[in-house]
């Protein structure tokens, strides 16, 4: 006779499981299904299964490959500098100085500001006619005439990358700061006794101790920035001449124009690309959990 099972754990998990199934699993299955269909709401009579038709079309679309490359640059440069400046900010905020609490709070502002607001705010900062950035650069004598930062192909993409860097620095700073506070002071005391200088302590104690924090934070940020639409869309909508169109913005634009099959196909491909990052992240997490047992 089998042991009687206690239903309570299942009942307690059920609401969360149902929620996840409803808001994650079903939409994902739906997106996968759409990617195999001609699903353009502008042409409802043509909706139907087309096999790999969307995938073939997407993979032969030059704009798709351009968007993939833009995404690589957007993530590589954006997250790279977010990490670099976030790390420096965390080191500064870890020191004792007057007003540290206020500085820590202020430094969080970019992170807590909604992406839509950031987009609108920076759009005005970069404005080629009335923007404050142009005004400052002109007064400093760095430029001779106003630069339409968001209207030029060569400046628009660096401008949106600068914005995402500004937004993401506090996240890195916050996570690394938390990590810094977990490093035992004794390690630094011992290094002092051994005559280590600041650089040696940074590379021999601080960075190795923060390895897990840096790893997890960077991976998470890569995924978030890859999927980010709000900042770019509110700054440029992917223009001018698709100069700022990352893959997620392309998906958004196609979705907005109601070609949902095409948008779903690109989403699936983006998800596959990001899953390689997610797999590394999950393996690390599970390995850490195993080690902790």
């Amino acid at each position, binding site marked *: 006779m089998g042991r009687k099972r206690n239903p309570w754990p299942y009942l307690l998990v059920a609401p969360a499981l149902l929620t996840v199934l409803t808001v994650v699993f079903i939409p994902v299955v739906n997106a996968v299904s759409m990617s195999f269909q001609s699903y353009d709401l502008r042409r409802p009579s043509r909706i139907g299964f087309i096999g790999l038709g969307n995938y073939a079309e997407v993979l032969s679309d030059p704009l798709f490959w351009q968007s993939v490359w833009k995404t690589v640059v957007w993530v590589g440069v954006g997250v790279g500098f977010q990490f670099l400046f976030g790390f420096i900010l965390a080191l500064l905020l870890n020191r004792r100085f007057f007003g540290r609490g206020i500085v820590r709070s202020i430094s969080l502002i970019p992170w807590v500001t909604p992406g839509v607001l950031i987009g609108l705010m920076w759009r005005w900062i970069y404005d080629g006619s009335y923007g404050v950035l142009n005004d400052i650069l002109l007064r400093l004598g760095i430029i001779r005439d106003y630069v339409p930062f968001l*209207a030029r*192909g060569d400046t628009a993409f660096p401008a949106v990358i600068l914005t995402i860097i500004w937004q993401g620095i506090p996240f890195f700073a916050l996570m690394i700061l938390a990590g810094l506070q977990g490093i035992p002071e004794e390690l630094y005391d011992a290094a002092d006794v051994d005559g280590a200088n600041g650089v040696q302590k940074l590379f021999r104690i601080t960075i190795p101790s923060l390895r897990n924090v840096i790893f997890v934070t960077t991976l998470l940020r890569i995924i978030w920035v890859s999927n980010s639409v709000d900042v770019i869309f509110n700054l440029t909508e992917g223009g001018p001449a698709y100069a700022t169109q990352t893959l997620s913005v392309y998906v958004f634009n196609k979705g907005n124009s109601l070609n949902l099959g095409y948008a779903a196909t690109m989403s699936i491909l983006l998800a596959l690309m990001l899953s390689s990052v997610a797999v590394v992240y999950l393996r690390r997490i599970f390995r850490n959990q195993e080690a902790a047992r």
Partner: protein
Amino acid sequence: MKKVFALAVVLSMIALAVAAAPKPVTITHWYWADNPKYSAVMKEMAADFNATNGKGITVVVQEYPWDGGGYSETLFRAAMGGGGPDTSSAKLTSTPLFVSNNLWENLDKYINRWKDKDQIDPALWKTMRDASRTKNVFLMPWTTQVLYVYYRPSMFKAAGISVPKNYAEFLDACAKLTKDTDGDGRTDVYGFGMRGFRGGHEPWGSFIQARGGTFADFTTAKAVAGMQDFIDLFKKGYVPPTAPMDGFNEIIANFKSGKTAMTVHHIGSSTGMIDTFGDDVDAFPFPGAEGKWTSMGDTENVMFRSSKNKDAAFEWLAYLAAGKGQITWCAATGNVPVSKAVQKLPQFQSSRFMKVSIEGAPFAGIYPVLDTTTEWISTIWPNTIAAALQGKISAAEAMKQLQTGLYK
């Protein structure tokens, strides 16, 4: 016995009165407003309709941003998701999308029994019918806006030029009005406020057609010549360098701040222009050469098939098209009324901007209403134009891309 009979009669009459009294219904109406003033006017109109319709109809108006055309997408998503309003403001270009998805109500039977249907010009009814690519009318006309060129008479006087009578004079005026007013080597006033971002296809169309091009084929030599004129204005520095990303807000701000001497928009902006410049602002129809065309902006109202109170919904649409709502809205916004009786009212005959709108009406038109038009307007046109203005592609290449994008 008599008392009982009298009581029975009275009770019967009360019962009949109660039965005959209109059942109160609520209609939800979506709209967009270009500024807070128009928003307030719409709320006043709804309040007026609610107080005067005498049929127990209450209209609840809900405002959504126009968002460079994003309104139509918001409305579509809401309706497809099973929500959305009973009635809504809409544009002709949205028609194929909503009609092919069976979202809008065919208004024919309501219009046929509408006493004011003859107040609307038959040509306008035809435009509504053509937009749906059926024999039915799905949109109730509301207002039209004919695009024209705003200009600053004082700047024209300073440049020693008069109002352009033809396309060549217009291009010449763009050059002559571009000035370095303080001699620091930088342009302070640009001749023309070019709209290179969303919505810019409307004034752009005037350049194409002025050269004799048409929207049926963007790749003809004439259409490409119009595109080249557009590019040249940018390359020669007669328009702000921000033009590839300048939308409605930017062209209006540049004109109002004196950064541009001319720009293209419709009468909807006239109130703000007069507030800013007083008498130092005027308008002229976009001039032509081999061809002549300007964009007819349109705003209609539609009824959704999902509405449970269609007769009440049509009462509201009728109020907007030919009733007091037509007068109030057009007077406040400066839009051109669609009702012939309202057009004849003195208040609409005296405005100088209305006069220019009426002058432009004979050659005003719309873009082909296709299922690709919305994406072409919002994504393909601005990005292709930006590439052409930046010199990444030639005028001919740009026109080829635009042709493929619209007629794919």
